[in-house]
């Protein structure tokens, strides 16, 4: 197995992999891709409101930009936060280019319709599959201001903890918490039809 110094390449720390990549070792960059692709795709999907397959295309662009700008990364700082920041910025650009109601797919359109006009019989929630509930959530997220939608997407869509979100967005942890709390108060009424009594999926 290829090695970097005494470490197997797959166990090398991010800074060492970055240095190897800058020296022309693409395999080292491949390890970084393997290490972070899951969360980068999740960020792209949840922040932009993209389908998973589309998010993979955006994530490819994220890694390409990271590769082209790798000299700008400062060793010793958090590589993942630097990478996630690129992902967030690209995803926010995509989100900004389309109106919230334009989230694609017939299921998303139905979910949006339910948001605007919940079934008076209270029955539609029972028929919603989990994926459709997720689409509904994504649609509601697209209606939140970008700052709030982003922290929710990072916390719940990409499973980042407070400190990772703070590093990614370059804000204090207290700001992350405050935005999350505010985001939930904004999101709650949008999803209220799903949470009324007897509406448990």
């Amino acid at each position, binding site marked *: 197995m290829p090695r970097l110094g005494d470490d197997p390449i797959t166990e090398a720390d991010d800074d060492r992999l970055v240095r190897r990549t800058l020296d022309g070792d693409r395999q080292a960059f491949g390890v970084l891709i393997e290490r972070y692709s899951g969360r980068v795709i999740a960020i792209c999907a949840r922040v932009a409101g993209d389908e998973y397959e589309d998010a993979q295309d955006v994530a490819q662009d994220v890694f390409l930009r990271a590769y082209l700008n790798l000299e700008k990364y400062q060793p010793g700082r958090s590589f993942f936060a630097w990478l996630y920041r690129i992902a967030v910025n690209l995803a926010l650009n995509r989100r900004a280019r389309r109106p919230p109601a334009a989230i694609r797919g017939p299921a998303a359109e139905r979910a949006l319709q339910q948001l605007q006009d919940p079934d008076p019989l209270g029955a539609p929630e029972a028929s919603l599959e989990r994926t459709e509930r997720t689409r509904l959530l994504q649609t509601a997220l697209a209606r939140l201001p970008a700052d709030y939608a982003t922290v929710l997407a990072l916390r719940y869509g990409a499973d980042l903890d407070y400190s990772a979100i703070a590093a990614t967005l370059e804000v204090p942890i207290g700001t992350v918490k405050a935005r999350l709390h505010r985001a939930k108060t904004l999101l709650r009424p949008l999803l209220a039809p799903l*949470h009324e009594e007897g509406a448990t999926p």
Partner: protein
Amino acid sequence: MKPVHPGGPGEEILVAWQDGDAAALLDNVQEIALAEHLAGCARCQAYLHSLAALETDLASFSLAGRPAGADFTRQVLAALPPRAAAPVPIAGPAVWWGHQALAAGLVLTGLLILLATSDVMTLLAGWWQHAGDGLSAVVTSDGEGVGNWLNSLPGTALAPEAYLGLVLGAVILALGAGAFMVRTLAAPEGLAA
């Protein structure tokens, strides 16, 4: 901050409470008061219930555990352009010590040439003694006296080949010292200190 109901706690306070972050917003007395209020308030209980449901929905929102497509890494790597020019890597400790040894060798060589070809120690001793004698004798307002003193310096009596050794030794010594300084400034992390 919008209250959950008239006279009730703010919505964001209840969200923070639900998330376990209330301590950052409330002191101990306020937390106890809020807990007592929540225990007896149906509207706040309903609000907390809806937050719990929201949390359940959000928990199913994660995509982080979903692996990328099998070809994802290969596709990204295939799309990468070749790097224009790899930056000069920072030398490792072994290379750094090698350069330092080379610089030290230059310094020593320069010193040896100086000593061997121009009898530098005698020259320096002569200068030192002559400087003391001369400065005590020279009247600084007398330009002729200074000129006489300079002309009588020991170095002026050196043979031409001694000058060659002096210059060559000085140049090599300076090169070695310069290289030593530059490599010391470019020491790998953890080695300079």
